[in-house]
């Protein structure tokens, strides 16, 4: 089947999609957007977090056809090569990236948190990111990064 949607502001189309493919598969293998990751493909790790019509979801749990005509934002749509989003810059500075496989999902989930709760407490950060598993960092520098980003975004 064919799936057409808007991704990161651009209208895109994927053809010959097998009906059982997840949105994650379509993004990664058909739309040239491998930024969202495939660590568990069952919604347990958050590495495939994207925005679907402005709501934070796991792309591995969205069936390809469900994305038809929807508005998607992936990690590739946050920040740019020339200018990192403050969330991205904060992750870099705070040492919150090691292997980085969880990072795209965390960037999107953090972006979502800060637009809803601009100055979150540590507890609110931990609750909001409880669906994003990291195996390398122990989360300490990720929490630091979120505070750092919130501080900067609040100041501007």
């Amino acid at each position, binding site marked *: 089947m064919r799936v057409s949607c808007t991704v990161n502001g651009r209208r895109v189309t994927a053809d010959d999609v097998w009906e059982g493919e997840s949105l994650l598969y379509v993004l990664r293998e058909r739309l040239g957007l491998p930024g969202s990751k495939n660590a568990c493909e069952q919604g347990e790790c958050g590495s495939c977090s994207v925005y679907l019509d402005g709501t934070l979801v796991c792309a591995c749990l969205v069936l390809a056809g469900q994305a038809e005509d929807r508005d998607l934002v992936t990690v590739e749509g946050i920040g740019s090569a020339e200018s990192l989003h403050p969330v991205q810059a904060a992750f870099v500075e705070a040492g919150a990236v090691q292997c*980085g496989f969880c990072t795209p999902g965390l960037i999107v989930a953090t972006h979502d948190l800060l637009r809803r709760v601009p100055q979150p407490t540590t507890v609110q950060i931990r609750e909001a990111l409880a669906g994003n598993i990291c195996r390398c960092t122990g989360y300490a520098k990720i929490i630091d990064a979120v505070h750092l980003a919130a501080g900067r975004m609040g100041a501007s």
Partner: protein
Amino acid sequence: MKAKPRLPPPSVVSGRVGDAVPRPDAALKTRGEFPYSSDLQVEGMLWGATVRSPHPYARIVSIDAEEARSIPGVKAILTHEDVPGRNVYGLEIEDQPVLAVDVVRYWGEAVALVAADHPERARRAAHAVRVEYEVLAPLTDPEVALTDDSPKLHPDGNITRRIKIRHGDQNPRADVVVTGEYEVGMQDQAPLGPESGLAIPDGEGGVDLYIATQWLHIDRSQLAECLGLPPGKVRLTMAGIGGAFGAREDLSMQAHACMLALRTGRPVKIVYGRAESFVGHVHRHPARLRYEHGATRDGELVYVKARIMLDGGAYASSSTAVIANACCFAVGPYECPNATIDGWVVYTNNPPCGAMRGFGSVQNCYAHEAQMDKLAAALGMDPVELRIRNALETGSSLITGQVVDGPVPVAELLRRVRAMPLPPAVTSDHLDLTQLPGGVSNTTHGEAVRRGVGYAVGFKNVGYSEGFDDYSTARVRLAVVGGRPRVEVHTAAAEVGQGLVTVQAQIAGTELGVHDVIVVNADTQVGSAGSSSASRQTYITGGAVKAACEAVRERVLALAESELSELSRDGGGGSDGWRLENDAIVSADGAAVITLATLLGEEVIEETSEFRPRRTTRLDPETGQAHAHMQYAFAAHRAVVDVDTELGLVKVVELATAQDVGKAINPQAVEGQLEGGAAQGLGLAVMEEIQVKDGVIRNPSFTDYLLPTTLDMPPVRMDILELGDPNAPYGLKGVGEPPTISSGPAIVAAIRAASARSLSRVPVRPHDIVDS
């Protein structure tokens, strides 16, 4: 024209040893633009899938691929008959087939391969391959594997390795004796990046493999044998990696993808799903440990006797080294004049076990630290005081007879974690569920919650052991690019997320005083760097980079001397004390002599060096005595936990650690290792276990193999010592494993204190705490 997939770009770094330089690939990773092995894509790529055994032990009667072959889109189906070279490989013992021949020895063992043009078609075809098995009763108890009448899973019997350590008096007497039996469950490395890689045939009989792995060269040498190709025709390039922690030391899909690519003449990508990943790599050895500690009435350790049994599962992997570690470090970082240690690792039909961060020193740390707490209780002594009393020092002998040199700050580390202020108690005026055991699942509002504090200290070796030729290779190239000097560093060292690319660049920047350093992607076009394991890379590959830089520097200074011979004669300073700094040669008093750009012009200076640490020797088979290791690393932990003693639910409130890292090449990266390693220790202590029943993994998913989340992992308070090992480059010590060794035992000690339960098994489960 060969297609090339997107690979991690060269890392550009400016910084020196000791700087907290952000890692060069972090920005790309935050934008989702960093290419991982599971992101690899080239035109015309096929997808591979693996047919796996549904039985832990069975004879293969027949394999019928006819139906599978007829599925449209299927391009190849391969079995053991199609292995081009030797159908066997292994890190230490060559005991594992690329594809099973007449018997499968573990649940999930690879039996056949499929290549198709869409992963779903590959999956359907894999399901359609009909394998007829004669099911056999699996051997699942390691104690049974030890006996003579158990089925021989391998031609040489079931004992993979047996270790004996006999140190001092074998019949010692002591005033106070405590015994204990301990069990450690099977932990999984669970790196987030799935096993994945892309094999591209070169059209001339050779193959290029893009792979996320821990040791390119050992992969290549095994692959060359399996594919029946000379090593030069098997070229490996490191692809972006989603963590490792030991899971990528053995071959997983490498030979499979290469075989399919060579057969079909097309690129083949294989990506494991998470469930498949659980059978696609080795796990941490589950262990049973029986200990006896004897001490004087004053608390001086007199002897330790230990029996350690590791279940190695179906294939050896690195089991022979893991059991050696478990035995060498059986007593812990304490002076112990007399020791009798017996260890076995055996074959069973359980999932194969091998390397995981800590490598045998994790299991025995649970045991020796539990024993020390028991001993302290029996003696009426404070548990930290007892440890300090017996702590190793510089010049102490280990139970292997090796004398430990360099800083040995065991007592100091313990004092420091003990001195750290304790976190405040949870106040009851405002109910905040996130501060309580059970969290927002609302299981307690404070009822039956008790706080406990526990301590542990551990150690292990850095680098390979027992005479293994431990070395790394670095190629360093200095040239002028765009009017500026630039250093290019090339090693085969696997960046697995620890920050090795950054550290290599910092070392080059320091040794050559150059601002612009590029670390190019690792591949087999340069000599071996050894594995990213054993906490060894910063030391050994760092050492190789340093050595190559020194060789380059020598040539630069020689060049400058000959070019500037007039200057040095007239100028009165001479070339003594010239050094490289700030993109130039400066004299002893800091004055610039000549810029590198001017000196070099078009000239390129390149050097390739190998670096080896001090040699080690093999354990004597009867006594276990040897100079087995070249460096030791020590860490201590304190854990504070709150336990709901009626439900057995645990909240780890705080972890505190003190660790000697010798010299922090990149302090921010060092902290990342201490924090991340402690999280893996916490995981084994309270939630992570591969549950195996009759050889079958019952929980191969993240739903039931639980990793710590942001709500499980507390802050880690750290005290990082830099005591300088005189034998190591920059005085550094390996960092990665000690955080995973004593963190878990400290947590269990704290749970014991809170619950008054003896808890001899990890992971500790709620029913262990409430069982009466």
